[in-house]
């Protein structure tokens, strides 16, 4: 198991290195620079500013400087938000992004699995149709449509919840978390439903029923693992979807998280900030993929023995 994790970490590290390198050069190759938008700066001032951020150095030296910074966990100063380092910006935004993202994952998993199981066990019942409806809505209606619609309804018309921002504690979190969880509830419930139906058809479940140990115990001990394995495998990619979603969520609900920072930074060519957030997202994604692999290996002895 340790070797397995080690190997995955090594592969993940390589992917992360490739991601960061690619991001670095793509950013630099893209037209425009961090200070090209400012209208009236004299060439000397511009040169001074660029020198301060080492933008006058050859590209490979800038890259070397960046890598050296990463190794010291120092991501450098932001070019757009003067007087703030990238570390500061991430430290201020990450808690909001993480809080919303984690709650969304937890709720999506619990609700999705529950809906999927209920649908599979009572096929063609009212619950099954309800789950199907939630699935269809969650998959077909994009976050950036359902988000504003909920805002308009629950915040502007009914005035139950804040429109956005983070000023009202947990009440501010309700709408963003629900909207972010919705598409994942849809995927997870669909996945759970088909997986459960397939598992129920398996021969070993028939063996368990033949043992006369009671339906409850058959479900609990003989179908749950098989059903949840594909769901757990999906949680890795789901995190990626949550990251994508959180960028939208933070835009729609005006949450000062790192997702909104990322879009701003990319549009304004804030190189250090883009690099820092890319690195962070990449690392989160890779670590979660490894974590899901480990959980799967713990649950499925066949995966464990494979490597």
């Amino acid at each position, binding site marked *: 198991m340790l070797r397995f994790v080690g190997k995955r970490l090594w592969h993940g590290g390589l*992917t992360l290195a490739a991601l960061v390198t690619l991001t670095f050069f793509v950013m630099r190759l*893209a037209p425009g620079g961090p200070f090209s938008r400012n209208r009236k700066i004299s060439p000397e001032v511009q040169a001074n500013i660029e020198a301060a951020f080492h933008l006058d150095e050859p590209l490979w030296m800038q890259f070397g400087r960046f890598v050296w910074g990463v190794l010291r966990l120092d991501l450098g100063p932001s070019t757009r938000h003067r007087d703030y380092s990238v570390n500061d910006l991430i430290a201020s935004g990450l808690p909001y992004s993480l809080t919303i993202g984690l709650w969304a994952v937890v709720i999506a998993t619990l609700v999705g699995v529950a809906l999927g199981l209920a649908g599979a066990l009572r096929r063609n019942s009212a619950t099954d149709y309800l789950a199907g409806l939630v699935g269809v809505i969650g998959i*077909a209606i994009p976050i*950036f*449509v359902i988000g504003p*619609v909920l805002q308009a309804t629950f915040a502007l018309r009914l005035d139950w919840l804040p429109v956005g921002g983070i000023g009202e504690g947990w009440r501010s979190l309700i709408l963003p978390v629900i909207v972010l969880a919705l598409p994942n509830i849809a995927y997870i419930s669909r996945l759970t439903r088909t997986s459960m139906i397939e598992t129920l058809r398996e021969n070993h479940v028939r063996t368990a029923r033949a043992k006369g140990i009671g339906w409850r115990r058959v479900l609990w001990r003989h179908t749950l693992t098989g059903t949840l394995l594909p769901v757990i495998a999906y949680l890795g990619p789901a995190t990626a979807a949550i990251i*994508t979603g959180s960028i939208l969520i933070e835009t729609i609900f005006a949450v000062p998280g790192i997702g909104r920072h990322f879009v701003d930074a*990319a549009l304004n060519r804030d190189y250090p900030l883009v690099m820092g957030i890319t690195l962070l997202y990449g690392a989160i994604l890779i670590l979660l993929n490894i974590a899901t692999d480990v959980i799967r290996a713990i649950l499925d002895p066949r995966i464990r023995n494979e490597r």
Partner: protein
Amino acid sequence: MSADVAPAPGVSTLRLQARRFRRNRLAMASVVVLALIVALCFLGPYAFPFTGEDADFDNISAPARLTWPHLFGTDDFGRDLLVRVLEGGQVSLTIGFLGALVAGVIGVLYGAVAGYAGGRTDGVMMRLVEVLYGFPYVILVILLSLLFGGGNVALFAAIVFTLWLTPAVIVRAQAQSLAQKEFVQAARAGGMTGPAIVVQHIVPNCVSTVIVYGSLLVPEVILSESFLSFLGIGIREPQASWGNLIQAGTAAMGSDLRLLLLPGGLLALVLLCLNFIADGLRDAFDPNDR
């Protein structure tokens, strides 16, 4: 001597699958609705005496009263909302279908070559896919659309570049098993070259898989386009797309929800139809899957 040895999906099989699809009421209804929306988007604007970019200064922010000519009213520049939404639909639908087609073709060829070649070539090709898969999708697509300089073409290229991976992986798995089949080995023994085998034997035999997954690509591309346009990275004003119309609708939702609901509703309806069609295709081609 070799082209005719392939048991490519015979006409009868395809016909059977088509019949199965046609019996699926939800999927058939979706096809009809989708066709109507496409026709409306591409033909509808001709019925109006103005385009979506013409401002009518006498009717600024006119409400939706279903009266001619501004059926659903105008936005705060006096541009007709319905026409803008239909024109935005042209952009979103074109990018969606074209993008899915291009991404699908690239993915299928890549996967077919990797799966057929096997060995070291396959290893290298799939390692690349694996690395790209490891990238957070948003970061990649945002960076790429910046790299290509913004605008419609850049957007298109970025979306295609991020979405060909899944068809590649799926087709590769199928090509791998096809490469072991007797008729492929017979073709090889008969002196057929690698590229010819890929094009004549591997790809045609992946057709059903490709159709099923290709149909899932279309909504994904449309979603990506509107997502980026919503964030202000994709299609820009004054050109309309569903993404930036929804964005504009969000900004105005405090006073007027119709700016949000019209493009948003249409987008949701299209995505819904495409998903039902994809489901129907999967059931028709692969009835054991359920």
